[in-house]
């Protein structure tokens, strides 16, 4: 009997250790590319290409300096293309910030209002409309890429901020509507009804009563939209030229014909994922909440 329980304990312990090992392995698998990216950004061209790969080396800040400082001659000596990139990095970062923040702001604003009215006022055909909204995300982006390209050229939205922002708003609205609707659906109607009886009118009830109750959901939605827009490549490549180009396109363009400066690319990428990483880290409790909503609801009457 006694031996039996101690045996059980050992089995449980082993199982626990096995689970931890597995979790660690999976985590390492996902984290490794980011680690390698950051490591490479501190390596010289030669170090980046060394076989076997270097795990211990003397780090250099050269790549980071190269991104922003206009060291034209030096870079020009390597390849003409990199000169162009190295001198314009701040523009591309600015473009990415502008396009991401504006499109997310607009998508969240319209999406939240739409979600609220779908959830609360249920206009005729709500289910059909919701499905219709979702269906815009059913086909792969590449399918509509060419028509959109010609369309944008034709109406003069090609290579404009407004064009790219509008496109991102359109692509992210369905996500924002669906996500926010699920959050609004979760909050009891009684609370808003109480506010109506208390004398508040619809818009006030929306922003004073309903919205504060879904702020976690709002955070989660914004978090996911950031991930979507910040990393978007295909349309940014297709619809922009130098003036409106975003960082993902710039990174792709950094691959010259003669040689690829992986250290420089890694440095740009590290800088690029940094804001997203920080934001997602701040929003992580919202994101988690967003994914587990409905299962871990707070105690409420």
């Amino acid at each position, binding site marked *: 009997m006694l031996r039996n329980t101690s045996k059980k304990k050992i089995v449980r312990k082993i199982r626990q250790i096995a689970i931890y090992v597995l979790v660690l392995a999976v985590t390492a698998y996902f984290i490794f590319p980011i680690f390698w990216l950051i490591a490479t950004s501190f390596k010289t061209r030669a170090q980046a290409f060394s076989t076997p790969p270097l795990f211990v080396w003397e780090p250099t800040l050269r790549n980071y300096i190269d991104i922003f400082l206009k060291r034209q001659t030096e870079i020009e000596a390597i390849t003409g293309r990199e000169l162009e990139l190295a001198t314009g990095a701040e523009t591309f970062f600015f473009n990415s910030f502008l396009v991401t923040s504006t499109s997310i702001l607009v998508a969240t604003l319209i999406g939240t209002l739409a979600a609220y009215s779908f959830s609360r006022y249920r206009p005729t055909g709500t289910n059909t409309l919701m499905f219709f909204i979702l269906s815009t995300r059913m086909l792969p982006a590449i399918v509509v890429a060419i028509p959109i390209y010609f369309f944008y050229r034709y109406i003069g939205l090609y290579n404009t901020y407004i064009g790219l922002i509008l496109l991102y708003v359109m692509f992210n609205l369905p996500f924002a509507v669906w996500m926010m609707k699920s959050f609004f659906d979760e909050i*009891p109607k*009684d*609370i808003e*009804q*109480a*506010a*109506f*009886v*208390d*004398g*508040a*009118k619809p818009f*006030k009830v929306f922003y004073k*009563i309903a919205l*504060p*109750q879904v702020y976690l959901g709002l955070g989660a939605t914004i978090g996911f939209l950031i991930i979507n827009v910040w990393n978007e490549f295909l349309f940014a490549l297709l619809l922009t030229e130098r003036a409106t180009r975003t960082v993902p396109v710039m990174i792709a363009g950094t691959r010259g014909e003669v040689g690829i400066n992986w250290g420089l690319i890694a440095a740009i990428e590290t800088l690029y994922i940094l804001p997203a990483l920080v934001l997602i880290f701040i929003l992580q409790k919202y994101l988690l909440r967003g994914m587990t909503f409905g299962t871990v609801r*707070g*105690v*409420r*009457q």
Partner: protein
Amino acid sequence: MTHVKIKNLKKSYNGFEVLKGLSLEIPSGSIVALLGPTGAGKTTLLKCIAGVEQPDEGEIYFDDINVTYLPPWSRDVALFFQSYALYPHMSVYDNITFTLKQRRFDVGEMDKIVKSITTKLKISHLLDRKDPSTLSGGEMQRVALARTLVRRPRLFLLDEPISNLDAKLREEARVEFKRLHREFKQTIIYATPDFVEAFAVAEKIAVINNGEIIQYDDPLTLMRRPHNKFVATLIGSPPINIIRGHLVQVGNTVVFKSSGLEIELPQEKKLEMVSGDIELAFRPQSVRINSYQLGNTLRGKVLAAEFMGHQTILTLLVGNFKLKAVVKGISRHAINEEVSFSIDPEGIILIDPKDGRVIQV
């Protein structure tokens, strides 16, 4: 003071009819209780009156003005929600004053009103609480009550406002409703599943079930002359005794017969003979222990005696039936003792078991 008239109100949710053409008239300045079990349609009716739910059919009038399509913020009613519906992101103080702020009360006046109402409800120490979800059930209910009573609307709608309070507070709240009513003469509609509460508070009671008004009368009439079995069983504690049997004509009198017992029905009831099964009902309060009435003396065995302070509830085994009887004060009957008793003829009700209708009272 508002006269409320509800005409043929219908409301369905997803094809399920919650209100089935309900009509009701509430005189100006009266307290009316909506009495009915869970799911009877009380909450839906109150929400329709408040304007937060739109009826599918029918009209609602306040003082002969059709308000059916008037938005809730223009109706000037106060609704206490059964779910409390406190604003979860606001402090207790903000919860209570939200409605005053919508009406642009000044801060000094607001503080005075809040102080007075929260003192009465014993929640003034909770005013600074940031998160109402940390309050206990009883505290939440009192905060919600304070939020409802903080204004002087034309109509109060209270949906089970004191179900979660302890006995003492409940009594105080009932007194407060009545005082409020006397003082301001506001019309109050009070929904509750508890007949004791309805009797204590209301002047008239509308019994509601399955989205229909079953009977609308004053408490005494409801108790003495229920229209059907539903009302008879809903009201009264301990619940009414019901025995199934049939009627036989013996000479000039009509006798109710069931296995093991015979009850002679009073002649003044002028009963038409009813063939087939019938149910005889009487309240435990109509049982007279050790009282002999011609033709109506029954014998039973005491199965249990529960002393309730001012009365004792006896459970009697009569034939195959377990009947309840109420005796004033403490009962001296021992368990298993045989007792004789009779039933007050005034209290006998006959029910048609087919449709639950009361045949003759």
